[in-house]
């Protein structure tokens, strides 16, 4: 219990002019507590996070093309010899619950539970689901775009690491950051692309 007070006291002692030397990451650290699975390592930015931590656009000193190239190289596609859409597609019903599930990786979430994709926080998907956010584009009838290899690779990449296309995309990197498993991403792909999925009906 004494620890709590000490934390507060040390916050109180932070001088007001010290931002520049401290660094933003350290201000977050000094102002927050590790709870559950959320540890301080989450506050250490990777290159892309740093590049995109600015009001509009990319921070000066970064080369957009290099960042996008690195994002492209980060993507691991499903393995196959000759293309067939089934290599990318799982079960759309599982995909639906993943798309609706907003839990996962918060300090009060149980790390043993599977993470959600929370696609509905940002995207319109199935017509029947009206509780959808609008930070992202509508994905209704996404399956109309067909199941060509190019289309499969595009959608996979978008979910795996959307920064390939929009260098400072607001969408999480579900693959690179391990938010979703490979199987979960295939299930979500099926939710978007399966002709029987409510997204396409």
């Amino acid at each position, binding site marked *: 219990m004494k620890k709590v007070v000490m934390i507060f006291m040390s*916050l109180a002692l932070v001088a007001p002019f010290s*931002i520049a030397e401290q660094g*933003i990451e350290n201000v977050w650290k000094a*102002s*927050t507590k590790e709870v559950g699975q959320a540890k301080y390592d989450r506050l250490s930015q990777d290159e892309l996070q740093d590049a995109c*931590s600015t*009001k509009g656009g990319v921070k000066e000193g970064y080369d957009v093309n290099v960042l996008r190239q690195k994002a492209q190289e980060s993507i691991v596609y499903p393995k196959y010899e000759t293309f067939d859409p089934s290599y990318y597609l799982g079960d759309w019903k599982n995909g639906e619950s993943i798309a609706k599930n907003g839990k996962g990786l918060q300090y009060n979430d149980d790390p043993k539970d599977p993470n959600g994709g929370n696609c509905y*926080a940002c995207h319109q998907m199935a017509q029947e689901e009206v509780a959808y*956010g609008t930070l992202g584009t509508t994905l209704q009838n996404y399956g109309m775009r067909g199941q060509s290899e190019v289309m499969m690779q595009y959608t996979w990449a978008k979910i795996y690491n959307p920064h390939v296309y929009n260098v400072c995309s607001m969408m*999480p990197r579900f693959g690179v950051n391990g938010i979703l498993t490979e199987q979960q991403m295939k299930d979500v792909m099926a939710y978007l692309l399966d002709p029987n999925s409510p997204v396409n009906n």
Partner: protein
Amino acid sequence: MKINMFQRMIAGLMMSASLIAPTYAQDDLDNPAWFMVDDGMALWETPNGPNDVSLEECDLGLGAGVVEGAFAQLPRYFEDTNQVMDIEARILHCMETIQGRDLVDVLAKPYSNAGGPGTEMEALVAYVASESNGMELATPQDHPAEQAAYELGEQLFYFRAGPHDFSCATCHSQSNKRIRLTELANLTNDESGPVFGSWPAYRKTEGVVRTMGWRLQSCSRQQRLTQLQIGSEATTALEVFLAVNGAGAEITAPGYKR
């Protein structure tokens, strides 16, 4: 418009008797946060701690003992601590320095559980904020430390981190957007004013009064970061950023939210 328990009773009587058109907005009368305001006022005036004194001598920025209008100018720089403090940090400071209290209990649980009875901090914040109801947000930017806090707040707001790469800006930097069904204001411009001015607020879904410190803590969870702490430097700087962006808006605290 500020109403106290007595006025509320009178207004209630008038309305139930349908004698005269009600003087107070229905919203205000229905908002259970006003009961917390009354609790907070009582707590403010009750002696507590080893020094057995009330918080009435607490300086919230406008001089010792002045509560009216203080919230409209918080967070602000305080000479006695040489730092920018928000309402919660300042109340903690007064508990410690004036009442001589050990802050362990308060800091162990500053915010109540959903459906809970409400904490001392929540009641005090509701009371202090209500004493600026109807005034304009006028968070000062005169002292260099206040300007530095704004800049820090801005940088914190755009800081992307964690497994989801979220910053506050991901969810709060565009107008007319929603997450699921929840409308999100753009907190980088003057849309921030009515938002900042409506906290603390009674949250219908939780049945408790929540403070801005709680709100930001809850967003740090959604952001998948470590847990923002009450009165911390980041909490205060983010509040300065939000409040200054919304300068001039009318304070409607205590608010009422879904």
